[in-house]
């Protein structure tokens, strides 16, 4: 029971962590809460279901499961990257030098827009995918575990490791870190800030797309408002770990997933969302910079 809840929590946490990375990277560079990021995840989940349904009707899923899954991931990632890019270009770039509230409200506007766009295009009822991917639970340490959960946890760990290496080892990653530290200075040493910011949005969107597709496969069901709750939770995870800090977002995501899953099964399932926010508030009061965040003095 306990072990099973831990696996549930880790799978949930992996999804939160993937979305949280998008929040934390954008915040690290632009100091902006990208409220619309949850909608990118929702769009990813929707596309996942739409593509799976499409591939099933043309018969690809039945014959080449692995190929069709790879295709779903790739196409969704490309699309979500497109949405992320457009979002940045239209709603955030013109506001880069505005006061702090403007981009935030613009982000809320985009979020409302995207939710209603998907609702108008696809209807407000749940979009269901007939489960062709169900498989026998495998037994791990004496506990029955769904292979999909293992798949979610492993995929997200691979993606996160990839991101970590990208940020730490590549030239572009270095440019991103420099931009996060000081945009102006980074610009002066020849880094194309606009390009770095666009790439940040692309990477964040791809991770959200992966999270969306995995959730779509796991639950086989999406709705136009799933992005809102997931977005808030993921942002909570990012703040918990220390916003702007990439390993922090991963840690925060897993902690949040575990707290929710254990809290729901051992304390009260109705109040499971309350635990997440209470933890957030307690952490912010005791350690405002988050678990792994460095203490930053305010810029004057």
């Amino acid at each position: 029971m306990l072990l099973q809840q831990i696996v549930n929590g880790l799978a949930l946490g992996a999804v939160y962590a993937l979305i949280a990375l998008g929040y934390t990277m954008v915040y690290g560079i632009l100091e902006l809460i990208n409220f619309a990021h949850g909608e990118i995840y929702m769009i990813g989940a929707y596309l996942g279901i739409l593509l799976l349904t499409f591939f099933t009707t043309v018969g690809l899923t039945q014959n080449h499961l692995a190929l069709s899954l790879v295709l779903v991931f790739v196409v969704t990632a490309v699309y979500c990257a497109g949405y992320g890019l457009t979002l940045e270009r239209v709603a955030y770039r013109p506001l880069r030098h505005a006061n702090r509230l403007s981009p935030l409200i613009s982000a809320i506007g985009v979020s409302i827009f995207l939710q209603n766009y998907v609702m108008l295009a696809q209807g407000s009822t749940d979009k269901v995918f007939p489960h062709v991917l169900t498989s026998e639970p495998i037994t791990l340490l004496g506990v029955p575990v769904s292979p999909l959960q293992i798949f979610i946890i492993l995929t997200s760990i691979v993606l996160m490791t990839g991101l970590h290496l990208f940020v730490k080892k590549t030239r572009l990653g270095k440019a991103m870190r420099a931009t996060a530290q000081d945009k102006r200075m980074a610009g002066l040493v020849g880094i194309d800030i606009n390009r770095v910011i666009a790439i940040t949005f692309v990477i964040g969107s791809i991770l959200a797309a992966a999270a969306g597709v995995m959730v779509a496969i796991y639950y086989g069901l999406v709705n136009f408002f799933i992005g809102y709750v997931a977005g808030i939770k993921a942002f909570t995870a990012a703040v918990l770990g220390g916003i702007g800090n990439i390993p922090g977002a991963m840690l925060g995501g897993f902690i949040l997933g575990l707290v929710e899953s254990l809290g729901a099964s051992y304390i009260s399932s109705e109040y499971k969302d309350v635990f997440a926010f209470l933890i957030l508030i307690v952490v912010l009061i005791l350690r405002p910079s988050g678990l792994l965040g460095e203490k930053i003095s305010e810029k004057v």
Partner: protein
Amino acid sequence: MNLSLKLLPLTGLSVWIALLVLPFVGVRRAALIGAAILFGGLFWSAAIRVSRAAQRSPRVGTLWDETGEFFRAIGRWRPAARLRVFLFGIVTAFFMAGPLGMNNYMIDVLTLAGIYVVLALGLNIVVGMAGLLDLGYISFYAIGAYSYALLSTRLGISFWAALPVGGLAAAAFGVALGVITLRLRGDYLAIVTLGFIQIVHLVLNNWDRVTNGPNGILNIGRPALGSFVFSRPIHFYYLILAIAGLTILAVNRLNRSRIGRAWIAIREDEVAAQAMGVDTTRLKILAFALGAFWAGIAGVFFAGKFAFVSPESFTFFESVIVLSMVVLGGMGSIPGVVLGALIVVILPEALRGFAGYRMLIFGAALVLMMIFRPQGLIGNPRRRIELRPQGEDLKTRGRSSANGGADV
């Protein structure tokens, strides 16, 4: 600039958007959307060209800049002092007497607008004046509404006694939340207040013994004066009109007081304000408390008017709606905020035919507003004189000196 140069980015944009929406709307509608963007863009560009030619003013640059200039030009219009008094008189007379000739539906819409005017003015204290982004503002509204609901159904306390109690209860929660959270920087404050509204919503939904869960509380007592009981829509309309009038007066006084100035100082530069001897923590908590107080009052009225409260009415989304009223109208500007509340409530009712599209339009309008007119429909005049946004500063200064400095 010739047409082909402009056609290229527009075509690119429309193809790009059409591709993005393709999997969601299908081929036919994607093509329609792409075409709409292309022709809409061409039409807009032609319209701006014509208006520029008519004004004999020089072109400012790309279509994007031109659009920005178009909206700024609208915003530069200021009615003369005498016209303003006249407009104020007309508007006041309309709200005093107009509803007498309306049907109940229209009166109910105006009453709802009145509730939102009070809410938006309260939030304006927190966001517009003190510059604290509170995304959980509706939780104070909920506290006011549930205070009266419980006081009335459990203890039989009258509306008038509950009015201050609801306001003060909300203010107390505001102080409590403020003490905990105001040490945090702006964005963290936003997220904690967002967490707070979620917690309040969940508690209202699940604490069945007190709040009756999702079913809400029924049969809340109606307000009464002696033997006169408020029952018809028009009664409630005049009640909320009085409350809103009182709120406007109070907020106006605050705005011009020492406290109001201190809030504006905090909003513009907290460190500098602190250095000038402003007790920032105390004033920020005060802003939270006063904002919450008005939300509590609005909540008590809400419970009295509908005689029913349920958690449904108090969501994060409502908070966003009230925030958008403040932003749309003009942060820190009292007439602006009132106008914003009226527009956001009344416009969707007027646009019933577009029911499905109105939130879509609303979202897009928020984005466009932030890009082209961040100060809102009626910007705060004091702010415009004292503190111009830096980006706009250079451009407008150059232009206003060119046409004789007619801007300010």
